């Protein structure tokens, strides 16, 4: 964990409620895709945990959905705004596991951390298939960015307006073969359905309301097969067999 000040470079809507914020600052504490940062926002007591979409030396990209007052305030912040940030939080995805063809499955605002993960896996020479699930065409974001990485991208929409009609699990059944490991982030019902329908090993990133974000308050604890774990510290990424559904 590192405390640092980031400066907003750009903050733009990708859809009606999902925004992409690019910041400049010290990203050295971020070591893996799937980690998160915590932003201190004016007028709010607790920091806002946001998953890291992408990072390079000096540049950080966050994608967030406006779901409450805190994120609504984030959407109003202009370029040049400085934000007190804790970075390098959580464990992130472990790509060192033995596999050849990675299946990345993102649902809605769970999509962002998979972007940097896909980039890393491509760099590591893995075959990568990305399945993105959204409710409807208007909610789709980052499809082109994933495609630009040269990975196979499959989109599912619940209303069938784009791609496969149905859930990510339907899209996988219809269009994905040969994957031998999966990584996923998205709403809990999606993660549960995915974990139950896939017979390959994998890692999932969980979300929980947090107090501190760095392991001291026990606000975000979950029960796992190996006892209580903190989503912010031992997680947010867990191996699928660790989760007690």
């Amino acid at each position, binding site marked *: 964990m590192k405390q640092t000040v980031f400066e907003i470079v750009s903050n733009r809507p990708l859809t009606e409620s999902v925004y992409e914020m690019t910041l400049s600052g010290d990203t050295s504490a971020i070591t893996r895709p799937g980690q998160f940062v915590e932003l201190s926002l004016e007028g709010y007591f607790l920091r806002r945990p946001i998953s890291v979409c992408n990072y390079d030396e000096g540049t950080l990209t966050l994608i967030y959905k406006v779901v409450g007052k805190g994120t609504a305030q984030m959407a109003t912040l202009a370029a040049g705004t400085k934000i007190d940030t804790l970075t390098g939080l959580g464990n992130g995805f472990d790509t060192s596991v033995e596999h050849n063809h990675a299946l990345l499955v993102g649902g809605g605002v769970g999509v962002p951390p998979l972007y940097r993960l896909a980039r890393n896996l491509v760099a590591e020479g893995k075959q990568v298939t990305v399945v993105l699930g959204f409710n409807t065409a208007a909610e789709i974001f980052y499809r082109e960015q994933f495609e630009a990485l040269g990975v196979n991208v499959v989109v599912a929409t619940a209303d069938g307006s784009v791609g496969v009609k149905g859930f990510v699990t339907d899209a996988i059944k219809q269009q994905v073969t040969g994957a031998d490991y999966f990584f996923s982030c998205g709403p809990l019902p999606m993660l549960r359905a995915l974990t139950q329908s896939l017979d390959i090993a994998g890692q999932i990133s969980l979300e929980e309301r947090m107090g501190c974000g760095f392991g*001291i*308050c026990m606000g975000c604890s979950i029960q796992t097969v190996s006892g209580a774990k903190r989503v912010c510290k031992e997680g947010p990424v867990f191996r699928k067999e660790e989760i007690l559904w």
Partner: protein
Amino acid sequence: MVRDLSTTLCGVELDNPIIPASGTFGFGAEMSEVYDLDILGSISFKGTTLEPRFGNPTPRIAECRSGMINSVGLQNPGIDAVIAHELPELRKRFHKPIIANISGFSIDEYTECCRRIDSEEQVEIIEVNVSCPNVHNGGMAFGTSPESAAAVTAAVKAVTTKPVFIKLSPNVTDIVAIARACEDAGADGLTLINTMLGMRIDIARRRPVIANKMGGFSGQAIFPVAVRMVYQVANACKIPVIGCGGVATADDVIEMMMAGASAVQVGAENLRNPFVCKQIIEQLPEVMERLGIERLRDIIGVVK
């Protein structure tokens, strides 16, 4: 001029009055990666019960104006694991007096926990959280009546040799009556205040924000309540008081001590600013200079 930040709690010398409050610092392992723990006056470790506890369902946390609500529910590995693992680990990272925070749901649980922790050399002070519900009395918190608070105090004092501080709940009609009852029952000191019972509602979903509906409200918003209660109790009791509740700055520490606190705990602020205790300790000499204070202990209870 060198400013003297030291203070004393029942004969236990602290280099400075700053103590992370129980539940906002774990057992120190995570925070030892943030700064050198030995700069602290003391540490009150995570509230410990006889048996391991997972705590309450999530969500356990709610944002509030200038504060937060938590309903963690005393998640901890249990007294035996704390003694076997957490305490030795903390001792590797922290070489100053340790405060053991003990919770219970029956008088027997308090006494058994305190008896076991009392034999641990690393622990200098036992802090007893009486804000827990009494399972033998319809779930009413021990700390909400003078009689039950005194009963816990007397029972714990009977099995311990170390100074016992009773951590008082602010969710009471007359904090002074409860403080006096604890003092009369043999308490060596008092810590106040614990969190205030609060609640938030998600108006879009029409349901409580936290799973347990209600929880403990803490953070800067409760500071004036804490100062008032510390002032009332310090003026009514002879035993030392540790002030706690909404402390976020060196000025707050001075204010709490002027109200009557011999030492000061910093709680919820650690969760939003992990460096707050370090910053306060670094700022205290400057603030003392501005206010013409040579020795911090000289201002304890100066406001009458």
